[in-house]
């Protein structure tokens, strides 16, 4: 560790040094804290059997998985992707296509993730050479291009999209059971995305990504093979959104281009990551759950439901103005001792 260049984020060194000798469990209290929160929130609807709460938590977990994946690119690597929803949409489309052809969810959903990973690989080779605002613009273009392509792609139903017959759920024990099933799978995915995020962050590969974030040229000079590292970061950030997309649209029962490639949702994903704190493991989770929780509360609250978007927008503006590092980033800055607990 000591002979490493000092561009490594200060936090990692602190964490590492504090806990080198101990086992994985004690070595990373922050990860366990993060997972424990996710599990408690995630299992709450299952324990109480409350379906309305389950639906609220479903939206949160969906966002946690997406934001946490996006964070690998945005937070660690420092590349702003405005079009990340393209992976969610493509995964959804591939998954729905296979489901409607009679394939089971257990194959269709990973296939969605795989398709997104492949797309990320191809795109990565092409557009990760761009930096800063140029990359951000290119990602918007990709989302729009994909939407236009699917809109004219007959096997995916063109503008009509793909619908599933209600009968498909009987194969999973009826609609009620199928919705619980998707919920548990999503909970699992959210946890996988958090673990992945942690592993990336604490690995040598992650260190390379953060080096790229701080100064790409310097990173290259120090021996990071930046094109490869960036492409891998892009792929890793794409796979889980692809699987989540397949799950989400399976639960919805239909998919259309405008639902799958909604640019607005991309922006919401960025907001979640930034709210919670980009470049941290816990941040995107808190940001996603907090954002969706807030929106969910406002939209159903008798007091705010008619002005909910205005209130949400105003709150967001205040947060980005005054806590630009995000909640976890702010805590880490002001309470250095907590850093081991706030990965």
């Amino acid at each position: 560790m000591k002979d490493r260049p000092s561009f490594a984020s200060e936090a990692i060194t602190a964490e590492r040094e504090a806990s080198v000798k101990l086992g994985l469990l004690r070595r990373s209290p922050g990860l366990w804290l993060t997972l424990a929160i996710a599990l408690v929130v995630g299992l709450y609807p299952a324990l109480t059997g409350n379906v309305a709460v389950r639906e609220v938590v479903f939206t949160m977990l969906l966002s946690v998985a997406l934001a946490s994946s996006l964070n690998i690119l945005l937070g660690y690597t420092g590349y702003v992707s405005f079009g990340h929803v393209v992976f969610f949409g493509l995964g959804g489309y591939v998954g729905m296509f296979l489901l409607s052809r009679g394939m089971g969810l257990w194959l269709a959903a990973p296939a969605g993730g795989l398709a997104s990973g492949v797309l990320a690989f191809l795109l990565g080779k092409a557009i990760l050479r761009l930096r800063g605002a140029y990359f951000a613009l290119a990602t918007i273009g990709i989302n729009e291009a994909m939407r236009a392509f699917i809109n004219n792609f007959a096997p995916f139903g063109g503008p009509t999209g793909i619908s599933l017959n209600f009968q498909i759920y009987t194969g999973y024990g009826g609609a009620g059971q199928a919705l619980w099933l998707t919920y548990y799978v999503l909970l699992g995915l959210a946890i996988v995305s958090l673990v992945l995020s942690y592993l990336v962050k604490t690995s040598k590969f992650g260190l390379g990504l953060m080096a790229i974030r701080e100064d790409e040229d310097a990173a290259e000079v120090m021996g990071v093979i930046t094109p490869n590292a960036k492409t891998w970061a892009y792929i890793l950030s794409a796979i889980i959104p692809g699987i989540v997309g397949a799950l989400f649209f399976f639960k919805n029962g239909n998919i259309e281009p405008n639902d799958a490639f909604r640019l607005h949702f991309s922006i919401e994903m960025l907001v979640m990551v930034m709210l919670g704190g980009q470049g941290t493991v816990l941040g995107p989770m808190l940001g996603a759950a907090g954002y969706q929780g807030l929106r969910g509360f406002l939209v159903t609250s008798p007091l705010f439901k008619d002005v909910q978007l205005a209130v949400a927008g105003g709150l967001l503006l205040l947060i980005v103005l005054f806590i630009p590092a995000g909640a976890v980033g702010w805590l880490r800055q002001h309470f250095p001792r907590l850093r081991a607990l706030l990965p």
Partner: protein
Amino acid sequence: MKRRFAVLISMLMAVGLLAACGTQAPASAPTSAGNAAPGTGAASSKTVTIGFSASLTGASNVESTRQKNGLQLWMDQVNARGGVALADGSKVTFTAKSYDDESNKDRVQELYARLINDDKADFLISPYGSGPTDAAAVIAEQYGKIMITTGAASDSTYSKGYTLVYQMYTPASRYLTGALDALAQAKPDAKKLAVVHENDKFSTDVSNALKSYAEGKGYQIVLFEGYDTSTTDFGPIINKIQQAQPDAILGGGHFQDGTTLSKQLYEKKLSTQFLALLVAPPEPKFAELGAAALGVVGPSQWEPAATYNADAAKSAGIEWYGPTVAEFVKAYKDAYGEEPSYHAAGGYAAGMILGKALEQAGTLDTPKVKATLDGLDLLNFFGHIKFNTSNAHGLQIGHDMVYIQWQRGDGDKPTKQIIWPAAATTAKLTIPLR
């Protein structure tokens, strides 16, 4: 520098979110529900909760708000009358519970699950739009709740095996077929059609159904072309139409593209006998096109000038139910100060049909209400209502579109006339259109 860039990006995103919020619809509905259980004795009165999500914000907020207004009007009226009488002599009044779905389906399932579980909604009305309705139907069916869909014309929802979802609107597959019938009657020798449509789910479904219907009737489709939703220059498409030399042009999509296409067709002086477009022509604002609006035909789920009445019901041998067209139009104008659109009428009719089913079943029991809805066959101010009960359960098979044409009125101002179906016409189809 880096930090500034981040702050800049953050602020841009926040602004983007705010901008995406769209306009806030004035959610002003005269609510008298809830406190409208008159003193009929506590034991003999129940309150039924009707749950739905409405697009108070986002792209569909105008249509959805009107739909909600229509439903609310019905609820206010029926509550003011003391509610619907059940078989056991009790009276039920209605109260609505609704949330904003922001015109997209991200939260629709969450909201409907909440309506059913937390708010204890007894019956459901669909969101506005086919996509959100599809998502809501899964939840309704899963919990065994009856959902009346309005503002959702897609056919595909009903071929998915649902048993509790009932459609008020004429399905997309029949949106333009009536226009072709009108053309066939007025000009039997017009056989060459050009179909140009917006490339989205609804318009494509309509156009595909039109195509197979037309081909079945021996028409020749000389051009079948989709255009992107955001198209503003129809020059290339119009050139193609010109080359194909059709007798009639059908298609369109939504308001923006429909008005632009009509205008540019007029400016290019394209000679055609007949022009029928989706969605845009029935809107009162379409008249602002002036001379370019003249002759354009459009399908509408309902028009204030529609002439459905008790006599028509009698001659068709079916029951007449509810207010007359004039009574509904007046009540709506009194409540909201504007002429009702078909969205508003659909909202009102959805509530009314639900109320009728409860009254006829004499109970709130879902299987019995479902059986009543399955057997329903009646005429009302909104039109004929009858549901498919076999292969596409819940699909609307009774209701017909009315077709309007903008014709030259007083002082050359375009006025809307109903030209089809024959039973509801207020004027004859002008052909060729200009």
